[in-house]
């Protein structure tokens, strides 16, 4: 039986052996196209009440557009102290190109600016590289190394973690750490670790795209920055309450 089947199969092959490779005409559409998309995420848009009874508006956003491997990023973070007559303080405004270099990590490079938004002051311009992604144990991280026009090198680490309380509410610890490898006279940054900021937010999703939250934070100047603050008789640490919203589109 097997032999007969084999012969039958081969006879089919012989009869049809005129088969040749079929070229797909180049003007036909691709069956599957590369997809390009993007997202603008305002991770934190919040109102802060500090222990010094100051009110501060804070934002932290990231937007990207691109494919799976290459993306263009815009990151911006800053704050505005209310009723102090001072202009808005930009902690960072960066434009970066990004490449996926490991399944969970992007390497990003670009340019940025920070400083107080007013015509009189000097914004600090810098080049930046970031290692951006999801670390083992599900920490979302943004690790940046910056070098400014004067050659001063500084770094910033941001990490967020999400603890799911219910299907639509989360407890989110957050850590931000900054420091300088070299001292910057012009921008009043001593070398070493500059500051650490810990936050904890409780967020409730109204929808996947809009979730208000409440929370608190604690921040502290570190090392030489703390000494400088003490010298100026400023407080070294600060705590505060926040309320705000995370939203994206």
């Amino acid at each position, binding site marked *: *039986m*097997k032999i007969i*089947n*084999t012969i*039958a*199969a*081969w006879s*089919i*092959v012989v009869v*049809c*052996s005129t*088969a*040749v*490779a*079929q070229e*797909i*005409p180049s*003007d*036909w*559409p*691709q*069956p*599957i*196209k*590369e*997809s390009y*998309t*993007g*997202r603008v995420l305002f991770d934190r848009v919040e109102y802060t009440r500090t222990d010094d009874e100051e009110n501060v508006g804070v934002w932290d956003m990231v937007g990207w557009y691109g494919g*799976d*491997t290459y993306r263009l990023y815009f990151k911006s973070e800053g704050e505005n102290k209310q009723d102090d007559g001072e202009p808005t303080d930009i902690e960072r405004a960066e434009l970066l190109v990004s490449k*996926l*270099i*490991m*399944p*969970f990590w992007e390497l990003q490079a670009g340019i940025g600016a920070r400083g107080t938004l007013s015509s009189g002051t000097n914004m600090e311009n810098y080049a930046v590289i970031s290692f951006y992604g*999801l670390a*083992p*144990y*599900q920490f979302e991280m943004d690790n940046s190394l910056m070098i400014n026009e004067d050659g001063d090198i500084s770094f910033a680490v941001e990490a967020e973690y999400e*603890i*799911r*309380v*219910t*299907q*639509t509410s989360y407890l989110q610890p957050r850590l931000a750490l900054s420091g300088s490898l070299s001292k910057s006279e012009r921008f009043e940054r001593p070398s070493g670790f500059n500051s650490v900021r810990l936050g904890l937010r409780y967020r409730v999703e109204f929808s*996947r795209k809009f979730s208000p939250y409440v929370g608190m934070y604690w921040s502290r100047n570190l090392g030489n920055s703390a000494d400088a603050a003490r010298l100026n008789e400023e407080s070294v640490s600060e705590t505060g309450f926040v309320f705000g919203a995370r939203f*994206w589109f």
Partner: protein
Amino acid sequence: MNNKKTNERRRFIKKMTYSGSALAFTNSMSASWANPIGRTKATADAADLTTNYGDGVVSGNTIDLTVAQQSKRIAGGISNPITVNGLSPGPLIRLREGQSVNINVTNHLKDSTSIHWHGFILPFNMDGVPGIAFPGIEPNATFSYQFDVKQNGTYWYHSHSGLQEQLGHLGPIIIDPSDGDIGADREHVILLSDWTFEDPHTVFRHLKVAEGYYNYQQRTIKDTVAEIKKQGLMNALKERAMWAEMRMNPRDILDVTGSTYTYLMNGRDASTNWTALYKPNESVRLRLINGSAMTYFDFRIPGLEMMVVAADGQPIKPVTVDEIRIAVAETYDVIVKPKGATAYTLYAQSMDRSGYVRGTLSTELGAQVKIPALRAMPERGMAAMGMGSMSSMDGMAHSATMDMSTNKKIVPVENIAIEHNDNGHGVGASMIASNPTSRLDEPGIGLEDVEHRVLLYSDLVGANPWPDEREPSQTIELHLTGNMERYMWSFDGLKFSEVKGPVNFKYGERIRLILVNDSMMDHPIHLHGMWMELENGNYPAPRKHTISLKPSEKVSLLISADAPGNWAFHCHLLYHMEAGMFRIVSVS
């Protein structure tokens, strides 16, 4: 209560409508082919079908189909599905083995469209995949598909253009054997599908930019506390740490869930309660088709066992089970013998337990019986990580592989070692299965502990030997890979847009195709134009058009490369395919 009264009245009106004119009622709805009476030997001839169903059933040597998008009542709301001849799901195409058919498809959409005849053996240029078989059907154009029907059984058709399938551009096909015997006194088609009121492109974007967007059954603090109570603090934390370390989610069962989907049976939602009628003492053939875009269904009829007689349209040696997991794009034919004049629930729940659809099998319209509760959300265990037999994992979640290893039949793929190179599959693969195993004798996630018979791939035995029994002369290995975080899906870590050239099958050769699932998801893998004989250790092997792989599973398939041309080969989860889990197979 007022509510109760209204409900009673509604039920009464419903019943009256049904008994008043069952046919008129169903004809006003989508999928009018799903007549409660079904089809019996007495109504088997084509003329009878045409008078009973109008446009709902099309047959003959020339068939005209018109694709359009129109406002329709669907899933309890009004939306704009894609219709074929005014129906969504489209008409039932009824063919007969041995005939030639000429199907003229006219496109009244604004975009290019296509129809692919899923599971058909035909010339590659009639296969209906834009960019491979033909350029597609432009708006207001007509394409004539012409081919000989060389097989029989239960199949289906769907658009192969973009995400149109999600909009209801699909329908059932039955090919009667040349003698016309349906193998039972009556038959019904049960076409399962998933419907969303969101734009499919929005769904795809949500998956791309926000992992877990549709998953509302994730682990929470509450689950962690329960787990600690059950397993002890250290074990629970260790298990959680392992998933967290891998950045994987044990509850990632289906990407798109009941949070956006309404599940449909023959185009109707659960509340409509589509009814299949039978007469006492009849045997009933149910032709189950999973025409979903993304949903695996577990189908059962509480109180009634099912004799499975065909898989993917191809006859198998009858096997009696109580439940069947139907992967996306698979079809199964079962014969049931209802007792007396009982009413039964036809129950299909999604694999992730986020929803269900039901109908009723009954001797009278309007009957309904208790609807089973959804089962608890299952979680993936160690076997999913491809660590099924690693001894260091003992004491952790038990994998079925370990438990059943004693009476397991050795299948060829178990003797084939799977090698991964050092850097895995690149950025497109967030994991590799370090120790993939054969899992054909496992029922699949969430069914491990059910106390009745679940159909296993290892149960499938072909009804007859297939003509080509040569030993394979060419071996091809492909790995199913993905990066869930970015919703990248691929073979061997490369999306379709990243590969140069097709997978080459040498014409006339016998191919052994080894598939290894290096991801944490189940994937229904579909080869166009040729059968895949599943090497499950049975003779004859069952042959299928769609093979579902569990996480970290390896399978081997035998293929006779007897169909010259270019063919699509892809994951049949619609958004996985769109994300790049797609290859061209060239037979030359």
